[in-house]
């Protein structure tokens, strides 16, 4: 596997050692060669990327600094609005949709010198854990094309793992960055809720959604995060909390690091996943870190809580797709009223999983069930948050597997509930609104292929510097 290095690319381009145009052309060539087999990209912006790269080179020639991401090639998940190309959320509902504005994250990346090379495939409206609900075909895992790259940000993860960009963007509502990062053997960061603007991210679960980067290294994740993080006047839920400069934070001294390991994260894992976690713990212990046994009993209620809150929010958010102002509109039938037109437009435009979640969300919010489901889930949400608060009084970060298994085969999981269980270790991060990251942590060779295994670190809200420094330490211990 190719290991792209965004930091090195930007540094080479800023110093004049590499031309942005040459780098963009090489990236586009790699996409043209590998994408037909992977289906990571839905759209590739050959011309616009080369023009943008030429503009970066022109700035350098004029003695100006294009920014910390000078010439870095970025792939954008297709639920993030770009004026370039379409923004479809991998749904027939938004086939052909063109955003009149760029998402704040896109504006910030481009402002820092980045070159947007394309839009990536995903589970439709980010609902899925395998990128199989994508209306534009399944995405394949570069480590084994018979397997899924995970989801919902599978295209961005596959593009990154195959070296078809220097960094990519995903969104994470219940694990949609961290699980595909784990399955593809790369780094995936889900920042604290509110840390990165959601302006221009098509809403799924508004109290859960967060944008974050996929990268090869922790250093690159920190670079992309630093460019994107911070308050945005367009997103009233972007936090008015100063972004801490991770580089100003000293490197983590393992001898002062307390790593919490919840007993609930140790059951039901494949043997190779258990092995990977044990190895990481042994390395941390040998380096002087303190391993703290902690208890997060609410882990067992995470999936249930999530599958009340997220569909409830989704059913409200997706009500806007009615076929009137934008999106798919069914052909009108004689004598048909507006309500029938809405219903047919929605059922023609949305795929099965999206409709299933709209149904679930509508059900739990409907009269007579609201208290039993939604209100109860919101109370348990507070218990989940309190449980993390208690745990973080005893440890600095929480370590565990990102997912109980390595990548599963395409078509291998057909029961919706079984698919949902994939996110057992990741959903509570979103429910509590804290920060999480998945790091490459080992390899599962039991299938004959070398399948990556991901390890997840979690840290309290707005403690990204701590999370990134601890990740950097673990990354170096694992690669030594």
């Amino acid at each position, binding site marked *: 596997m190719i290991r792209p290095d965004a930091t090195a690319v930007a540094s080479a381009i800023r110093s004049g050692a590499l031309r942005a145009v040459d780098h963009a052309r090489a990236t586009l060539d790699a996409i043209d060669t590998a994408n037909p087999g992977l289906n990571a990209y839905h759209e590739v912006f050959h011309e616009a990327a080369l023009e943008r790269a030429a503009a970066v080179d022109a700035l350098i020639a004029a003695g100006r600094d294009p920014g910390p991401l000078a010439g870095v090639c970025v792939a954008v998940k297709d639920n993030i609005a770009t004026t370039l190309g379409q923004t479809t959320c991998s749904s027939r509902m938004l086939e052909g949709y063109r955003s*009149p504005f760029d998402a704040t994250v896109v504006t910030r990346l481009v402002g820092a010198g980045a070159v947007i090379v394309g839009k990536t495939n995903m589970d439709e409206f980010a609902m899925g854990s395998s990128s199989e609900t994508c209306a534009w075909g399944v995405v394949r895992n570069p480590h084994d094309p018979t397997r899924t790259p995970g989801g919902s940000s599978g295209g961005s993860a596959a593009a990154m793992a195959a070296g078809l960009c220097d960094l990519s963007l995903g969104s994470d509502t219940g694990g949609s960055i961290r699980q595909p990062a784990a399955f593809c053997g790369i780094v995936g960061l889900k920042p604290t809720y509110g840390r990165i603007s959601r302006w221009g991210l098509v809403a799924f679960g508004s109290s859960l959604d967060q944008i974050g980067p996929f990268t090869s290294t922790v250093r690159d994740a920190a670079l992309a995060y630093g460019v994107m993080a911070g308050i945005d006047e367009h997103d009233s839920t972007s*936090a008015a909390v100063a972004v801490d400069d991770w580089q100003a934070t000293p490197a983590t001294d393992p001898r002062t690091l307390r790593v919490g390991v919840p007993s609930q994260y140790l059951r039901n894992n494949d043997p190779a996943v258990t092995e990977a976690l044990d190895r990481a713990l042994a390395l941390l212990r040998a380096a002087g870190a303190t391993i703290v046994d902690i208890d997060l009993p609410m882990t067992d209620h995470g999936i249930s809580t999530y599958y*009340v809150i997220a569909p409830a929010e989704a059913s409200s958010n997706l009500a806007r797709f009615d076929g009137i102002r934008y999106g798919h509109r069914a052909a009108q039938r004689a004598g048909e009223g507006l309500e029938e037109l809405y219903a047919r437009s929605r059922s023609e435009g949305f795929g099965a999983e999206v409709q*299933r979640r709209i149904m679930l969300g*509508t059900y739990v919010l409907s009269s007579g069930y609201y208290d039993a489901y939604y209100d109860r889930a919101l*109370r348990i949400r*507070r218990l989940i948050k309190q449980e993390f608060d208690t745990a973080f009084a005893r440890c600095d970060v929480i370590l565990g597997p990102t997912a109980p298994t390595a990548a599963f085969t395409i078509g291998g999981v057909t029961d*919706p509930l079984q698919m949902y269980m994939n996110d057992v270790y990741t959903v509570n991060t979103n429910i509590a609104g804290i920060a999480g990251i998945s790091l490459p942590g080992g390899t599962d060779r039991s299938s004959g292929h070398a399948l990556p295994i991901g390890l997840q670190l979690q840290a309290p*809200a707005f403690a990204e510097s701590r999370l990134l420094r601890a990740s950097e330490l673990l990354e170096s211990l694992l690669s030594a």
Partner: protein
Amino acid sequence: MAESPTSLSSKDVAHVARLARLHLDEATIDSYRTQLASVLSHIARLGQVDTSGVEPMAHPLDSVNRLDADEPGPVLTVEQVLMNAPAREGDFIAVPKVLGGESA
């Protein structure tokens, strides 16, 4: 839970589909009935948790929504607003007739 979710009937599913403005055929209603019942049975385990005296948490941030200053800012042009409309007449989005009668 107040209701046993496995008792979900096709009629219940059809009712929810109507609330959600989804047009589902009978076969789809039947498959959703089975799948939703299975997910709801799983979710029903939340009923085991003692939530008495716990304040519901709708959002991870404590802060309330910020309000912008009431000042005009850049807005989308009519062209930008209409460029994704499925049907258009001049500067308007064309929609089906919603009132009965020839002149409505």
